[in-house]
């Protein structure tokens, strides 16, 4: 059986040729997922990848697991139904910023809120790749594309803030270029019970090359990103000389470690039931703040399907496991006799004096 033989990353490669543009960030994600899966302790026949539509959503075809390449934006709905059919499966949803936050925004919100035990990997390249480069809900305002030749006018979604607002119990961010970090995050996401939402920043070198260069360019990246580590102070910078301090009315500020006491620096805690800290961190963006990477929130709640099956058990305990013959009986039944006179159910005499 596959769960007794140690699998390796090759076991997860399907026989299909990968067709992303050479250099697309999605390759790195595929490689890391294939590397991590042998370690999560789930036989590959119990793993299902479900995607929507987009470059990123071709992902399931490349995985030698069960998979569905569904329709645009709807993958979380299929995942929820699948978990109701078989809660023992490990289900990954693969989606893009357009797939998950534009056409499928509603489903993403509701998947998070229900806390179905699935892992949502949102590949954020801040552009519509497959349809050849229109701006997306995560494109920065002013992004010039074929549909926004003078610059896009819309405020961008922050996927982490959205997931937190939608009550996701596990919320994390990683990036295509950081293989080891991505691996850690994927492991934690897979281990989490309930909906895990992982934003993976990924580079579309054809239509949006360099959109994340702030946090990927060797020379500047360490000053522009913040590693969130459980129980660790929020310190960053090329020389680890900067930190995040809370000031005034729940406003974070970047401070130099030379100017403040070490204990003034915020310490990360992703286990807080309230998502205020996580939400505040999610709002930190360039250029005023470093971009946080890591786990924003990781709390343990009852999952949707656990709730469903508990209710089934409770109903069966209270009423007995349903049997068809009892199903049909209603409060009022009556018997029609063989003599075809149909009178048996007649209850009580009719008061009649005439």
């Amino acid at each position: 059986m596959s769960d007794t033989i140690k699998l390796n990353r090759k076991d997860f490669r399907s026989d299909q040729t990968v067709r992303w543009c050479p250099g697309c960030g999605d390759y790195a994600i595929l490689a890391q997922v294939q590397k991590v899966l042998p370690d999560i302790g789930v036989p590959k026949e119990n793993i299902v990848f479900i995607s929507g539509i987009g470059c990123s959503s071709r992902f399931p075809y490349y995985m030698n697991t069960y998979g569905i390449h569904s329709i645009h934006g709807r993958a979380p709905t299929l995942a929820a139904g699948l978990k109701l059919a078989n809660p023992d499966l490990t289900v990954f949803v693969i989606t893009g910023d357009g797939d998950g936050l534009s056409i499928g925004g509603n489903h993403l919100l509701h998947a998070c809120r229900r806390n179905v035990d699935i892992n949502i990997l949102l590949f954020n390249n801040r552009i519509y790749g497959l349809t050849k480069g229109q701006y997306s809900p995560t494109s920065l305002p002013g992004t010039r594309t074929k549909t926004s030749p003078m610059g896009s006018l819309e405020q961008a979604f922050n996927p982490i803030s959205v997931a937190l607002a939608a009550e996701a119990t596990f919320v994390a961010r990683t990036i295509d270029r950081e293989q080891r970090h991505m691996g850690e995050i994927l492991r934690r996401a897979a281990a989490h019970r309930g909906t895990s939402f992982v934003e993976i920043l990924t580079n579309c070198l054809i239509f949006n090359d360099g959109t994340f260069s702030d946090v990927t360019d060797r020379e500047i990246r360490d000053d522009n990103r913040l590693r969130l580590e459980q129980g660790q102070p929020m310190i960053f910078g090329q020389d680890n000389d900067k930190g995040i301090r809370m000031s005034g009315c729940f406003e974070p500020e970047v401070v130099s470690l030379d100017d403040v006491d070490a204990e003034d620096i915020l310490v990360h805690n992703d286990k807080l039931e309230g998502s205020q800290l996580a939400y505040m961190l999610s709002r930190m963006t360039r250029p005023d703040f470093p971009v946080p990477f890591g786990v924003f929130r990781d709390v343990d709640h009852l999952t949707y399907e656990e709730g469903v099956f508990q209710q089934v058990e409770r109903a069966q305990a209270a009423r007995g496991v349903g049997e068809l013959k009892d199903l049909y009986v209603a409060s009022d039944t009556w018997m029609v006799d063989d003599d075809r006179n149909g009178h048996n159910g007649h209850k009580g005499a009719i008061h009649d004096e005439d």
Partner: protein
Amino acid sequence: MAEPGKPVQIKVVDDVVIRFAGDSGDGMQLTGTQFTNTAAIIGNDISTLPDYPAEIRAPAGTLAGVSGFQVHLASADIHTPGDEPHVLIAMNPAALKASLRNLAPGGTIIVNTDEFTRGNLRKAEYESNPLEDDSLQNYMVHTVPITTLNRNAVEDIEGLFAKGINRSRNFFALGLTFWMYDRSLDNTIAWIEKKFQKRPEIVEANRRALQAGYNYGNTTRTFQIRYRVKPAHLPPGIYRKITGSEAIALGMVTASELADKPLVYCSYPITPASDILHNLASLKHFDVRTFQAEDEIAAMGAAIGAAFGGAFAATGTSGPGVALKSEAINLAVALELPVVIVDVQRGGPSTGLPTKVEQSDLLQVMYGRNGESPVVVLAPSTPSDCFDITIEAFRLAVRGMSPVFVLADGYLANSAEPWALPDPESMEPIAVKHPKPEDFQNGSKFLPYGRDPETMGRPWAIPGTPQLEHRVGGLGKQPGTGNVSHMPEDHQQMVAERAAKVASLVDVIPDLKVIGEDTGDLLVIGWGSTYGAILQAVQRAQRDGKRVSAAHLRYLNPFPGNLGDVMARFDRILVPEMNMGQLAMLLQARYLQEINSLPKVQGQPFKISEIRNKIDEILSQGLGTVGD
């Protein structure tokens, strides 16, 4: 007025149609349901038609706020809630006005005179009081101060608030109706006691009101005649009353049990389909897993996910919801997964008439999706047929690995009839096969889109099965492997395979039966809930010596194999349907025979007389150009 002392006469009648009408706050649905329940228990054949406004509380006293419940009880086999009520119980002027149009000439009207105030008459848009002018002279009108009599009966009940006093008026009316039809109050009293067990003052008020209504009939002698409708001659068995919604829910659970599969039902609330979800949500002890989705798209998506996982998956909605589901239904077509989709049709387009009946989604479910997208389409004919057709839908879905539509409608869903409880032992199990790794040991390769030579279905390999890992998707595919392919021949072949698979179900669906002679001047073809009205119209025509037969389509895609032959044996074809002629168009296109269409889109079911008249009209036209 009856003469005091003269005994009230009891007249035995074959059937009677009673309509309870009042404001939507007056509890008319409940009143009608209670009357029906007692009739059913006594053994009458019954058929009901609830008719209520879309608003929960339209302005009180207005025409828009009228809620009606029509019940037909009979000692003979009946199939419709009746064309015209014989008796109307009108709780206010608006109810009288809204219902009068349909009342049988010479019919009986019982009005609550207390509500015929100047204000209420104005709200009902009456220029003068119909009880005082001669506009009701063709009816037997009984004026009863129901509000006052009810108040006298209940006002001294301790704990009953002033507001609660009028609440029991409907029970007064019900009690009076029970007296008129020689019925016991016991069943309703038992119901009241159970329903309001935590509110003794309400039990007392309703019981007293009911009894007071009954006594009013008994003592005042306002009515000289009471009626008795004898039990119907139904086949022996244990019966209950069932609505279409209940029958669909029970059919789904039954199908899942027959296959030993869990049922996953995914739906987004919409009138008139919500009751299916309500019913199933209370059947969790049958391992029913209900999912209230965020919208209809999600409901369809979840059903597809559940089917991929090997469950019995279904979704239910109405026309607007089907429109939203279309893209996902096509995914199910491309993934070739069994999903049952119930469309409880209502008046359209757009939001249309949410609480009224129509059959105008036929072409939507047949053709309302992009690409070549054949699906199986079934339509139940009666509330109890909803049970059988739902089971059949799962059987065909699994066999053909295809989405299957059940086209019900608001009338079927809400109306009730007696239902003989089926025997689970006598039902054929639904065989489901999931391939196993062992099936592929002798060198044969697992092909996700390989086809069973007999059914043409693809293998239903489910996650959790070792070695059969595979990917499915909505992109064009290579036959057999299902791998993504844009090759011209591959696409053509896949389109053809899916079409042939659905078409081949004709081998396992029953031939169309003709009700009446096999040949004749006219064949009336119906589908869905028009069954009862068509059947009775045709039977009446036959009794009048006309060479008319009826045939009812429960299978709309594929059509029964003999449909063309059956049609060809008749000179003319008439298709009454609650749309502008959608089935007529399909039949004409497919069988090249001229069709007479009888369309009706008034949000109301056909009356028997409407079809009966059309039959005469067509027969009187002579054969004319047909065959020239």
